[in-house]
């Protein structure tokens, strides 16, 4: 038997009401103990009931209680949701009451875990819920909702169907070798089909990576000599767009200095060790550090000083960032121009943080690079988390190997092996291929067992 769990399901301190969700076999009984109104054990499923939460005789809050009985609920268990109206303190008090009456505080993600384990949602749905909970922008939220609706599952299912058609045709040829009227699939004949499939898959990977950008944002490194104005640029960006969070651990192991929501695109500004410091780092260490950052981030903003001649180190960095997503910014254009840039033909943005010149242009350039407006947010059926994208890419790799095998004239049975692998990898995305790793991943994500 599953114990009954409870948690506050809305963000604390935001909005007029907060909802406490209770799930488990005892949820109705437990809530009923502290509810004054109708007898909740006797009300119909999927009803909303008006009443009060009471502690002994003391009225804690005036509430609406939704009673949803198993199995048609989010977790497939009995669920009760209490809509509290009294603010943080009262909500906490109601939660405490539930806990003292037999519920247990839910672990993070535990409702989702139960929904998955009870067969209410598949793995990709579970991820969708996780993403939805973590959604920070509107576009981000739309992807999560699509995932929840199973659109992403369907996308993968379609891919698998296409692939299984090719595979089963090969199988028929092997199992019924004497039948000439089944089209004999030679390598030459299946090559175009596989190439078409590969193109489809590549397109989805591309879209998914866009999705990932929307979901997880891009990591941005601001580099440049000390005193070139990195920290003031960061502050300018943060100030304008209002930092979402500061000083929290990001998705990478790096410290995220701040997050900026740039018209739906999240910029994770990576701490460039010293970006906020005003001390004089030795130039050499600065260059090494910069090189490290360049390798780690998705976008580099390289800040130069309009008022100083360019240094050898800076030229080195310019060379290094040539082939990456990067924006060269010349700051301090309010001062006298002493910098001279030769042999650099990419776009340069001239700004003055002090006089608030060029910041908008910089932001537009970032948006242009990531084509944020170009991504169709209406039909955002992408597989936007790292696990799915990695499986898609592994699958693509198998397809490429099979194409290579065809070109080297390997027997069709060998060609098929990689196609089958690709099919299985796609299955892993939607939990249709069983694997130990998947289960282990689940156990680790949901802290199952001991």
């Amino acid at each position, binding site marked *: *038997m*599953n114990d009954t769990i409870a948690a506050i399901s809305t963000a604390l301190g935001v909005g007029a009401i907060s909802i406490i969700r209770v799930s488990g076999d005892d949820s109705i009984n437990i809530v009923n103990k502290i509810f004054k109104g109708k007898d909740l054990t006797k009300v119909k499923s999927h009803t909303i009931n008006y009443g009060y939460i009471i502690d002994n005789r003391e009225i804690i809050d005036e509430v609406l209680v939704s009673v949803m009985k198993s199995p048609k609920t989010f977790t*497939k268990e009995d669920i009760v949701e209490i809509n509290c109206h009294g603010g943080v303190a009262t909500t906490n008090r109601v939660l405490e009451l539930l806990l003292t009456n037999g519920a247990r505080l839910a672990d993070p993600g535990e409702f989702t875990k139960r929904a*998955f*384990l*009870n*067969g209410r949602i*598949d793995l990709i749905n579970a991820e969708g819920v996780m993403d939805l909970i973590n959604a920070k922008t509107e576009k981000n939220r739309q992807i999560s909702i699509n995932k929840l609706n199973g659109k992403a599952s369907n996308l993968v299912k379609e891919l698998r169907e296409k692939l299984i058609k090719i595979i*089963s045709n090969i*199988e028929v*040829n*092997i*199992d*019924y*070798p*004497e*039948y*000439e*009227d089944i089209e004999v699939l030679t390598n030459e004949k299946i090559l175009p089909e596989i190439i078409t499939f590969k193109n489809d898959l590549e397109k989805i990977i591309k879209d998914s990576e866009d999705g990932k950008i929307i979901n997880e944002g891009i990591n941005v490194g601001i580099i440049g000599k000390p005193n070139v104005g990195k920290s003031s640029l960061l502050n300018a960006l943060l100030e304008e767009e209002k930092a979402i969070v500061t000083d929290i651990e990001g998705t990478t192991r790096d410290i995220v200095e701040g997050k900026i929501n740039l018209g739906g695109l999240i910029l994770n500004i990576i701490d460039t060790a010293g970006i906020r410091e005003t001390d004089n780092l030795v130039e050499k260490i600065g260059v090494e550090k910069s090189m490290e950052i360049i390798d780690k981030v998705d976008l580099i903003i390289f800040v130069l000083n309009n008022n100083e001649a360019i240094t050898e180190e800076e030229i080195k960095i310019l060379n290094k960032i040539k082939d990456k997503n990067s924006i060269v910014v010349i700051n301090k254009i309010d001062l006298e121009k002493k910098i001279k840039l030769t042999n650099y033909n990419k776009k340069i943005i001239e700004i003055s943080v002090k006089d608030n010149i060029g910041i908008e242009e910089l932001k537009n350039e970032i948006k242009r690079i990531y084509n944020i407006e170009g991504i169709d947010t209406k039909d955002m059926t992408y597989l936007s988390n790292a696990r799915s994208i990695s499986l898609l890419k592994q699958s693509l790799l198998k397809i490429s190997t099979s194409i290579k095998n065809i070109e*080297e*004239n*390997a*027997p*069709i*049975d*060998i060609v098929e*092996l990689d196609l089958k692998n690709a099919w299985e990898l796609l299955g892993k995305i939607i*939990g*249709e*291929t*069983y*694997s*130990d790793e*998947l*289960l282990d991943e*689940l156990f680790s994500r949901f802290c*199952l*067992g*001991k």
Partner: protein
Amino acid sequence: MEYEVIVVGAGHAGCEAALATSRCGHKTLLITGNLKNVATMPCNPSIGGSAKGIIVREIDALGGEMGINADKTLIQMKMLNSSKGPAVRSLRAQADKVTYPQEMLKTLKNTKNLYLKEAMVEDLIVEDSMVKGIITNNGEKISSNIVILTTGTYLKSDILIGSTRTRSGPHDEKPSMHLSDNLKKYGFEILRLKTGTPPRIERSSIDFSKAKREDGDRELYTFSHDIKPLYDVDNQEPCYLIYTTPTTHKIILDNLNKSAMYGGLSDITGVGPRYCPSIEDKLVKFKDKDRHQLFLEPESLYYDDIYLQGFSTSMPKDIQEKMVHSLPGLENAKILRYAYAIEYDAIYPTQINASLETKIVKNLYTAGQINGTSGYEEAAAQGLMAGINASLKLKGKDPLILKRNEAYIGVLIDDLVTKGTIEPYRMLTSRAEYRLLLRHDNADIRLREYGYKVGLIDEERYKRFKNKLELIKEFRNYLKSTKITPKKEINDILNKIGSPTLKDGICLYDLLRRNEITINILKQFNLLNSNYDKEIEEQLEIEVKYEGYIKKIEREAEKMLKNEEKLIPSDIDYDKVKNLATEARQKLKQVRPTSIGQALRISGVNPSDISILMVYLRKKYNE
């Protein structure tokens, strides 16, 4: 006890089972309705085929009889799929329908400990859920420690032609009237299956000039690992290929309602095999095809019947006449035997263990069509395994259960007892997920050791096998230790072959990795001296060329084996596992898998069910 083992039925399963137990030293009685019909081939006159040919090799590796018996009596031999990859190559022989049963009967008669008897078995002696013997239709009781049922299509079989249903076994043989009812009484769930066979045509009435001749291969092969080819490569019987005509299609479609399967009979419950459809089925299901392929196959050198492969039907006889005469070359054909469908009883195979002992009655084993399979090879394989496991049980040893990465036989039995079947089950290469390991060429390497251990492979055959392994090792060492250097004459040769020239020295083993290099080419250019047999060379060639893939499949197999090792306690109560999907719970209760690996293969049990089961097991049994 009068006998240690009684085998009921002397078809391909029964013969293998009886030979296995008697050869392992157990006093065995083989009972059949008609001793003239031992190991007959009531349907197609061939042994082997895609995947099936590999099963025959496996039977031979384990010490069964089918391979040798086919080698003795074949009249044409072909290697199928030779260009499609090493794993899917498979032998197919046209076997003589007269000499094949004769040879098998001779072997049975010459086997020590084996007794033959003509009778129909109608009931079992069962005490405390344990079988103690059989009862014949005359009421005779014969006792034994073990009974193996290999009843083929004889359980309450009905022959269906047009609108007539006749209770009969194949070819007018007596059916077993009560055995399946009695099995039901002991608690078995009975399944009704259906299969069919095409008409036989008189050879002299066919104009073969209108057909395309299909000859046997020019290379000699054997199923057996121990004997040399017994046939003359230049003197094989041909088969012929023809196609149905628009007239054929019109006749069939106009008379569709007369076919037993399309309304001629309204009481058909048997489920037929999808992979072996009747000609009516083919026309209905593949409407856009304007012709279908048919093969004319000789049944024997000793009589005149030609088997019309691909033309199985349950049309009435007069329509069959019209249909046959619409075929090219068969305008004046004389039908010797009409096509018919046959319905028969089988048991749901999830009621048996992987050892082929039933879960319901102890010491009772079943093999072949009674377990829901179709095909001579599938039957023989099960008969052999039932025999082996009956012997092991009598000796108090653990059963031999072949794994899915070891043999097609392992795949076959695991599929049956895990997934069950609702149509006659035929082996296909696509059922074997590790088929790159389950090849024609390495059947003995995979299985001969088992055959030796259970006592079916004698010292002489075993020594020959060990010697082969030695030679493979020797040849491998030779290839690895023989280096060639980038001399001009060598690079000239490589240039000629279209292979990149050498810059450094390389051993022959590594050179063979190149796609364009084969052992034959190396021999041709005197870069390799080999006196080794073709099979030794082939073994190394496959090993070198597909090493990467073979290793990968082996790793996948290891993963599967890990799941096999995660045992499910036999006393598990699935009703206590919360949140299982209803279908999954039902299937798990029915099959009672022994491991997580097996549970995973049950259709209707989804990965999420397995996750739930794992959570339950971890909680319940680890805490």
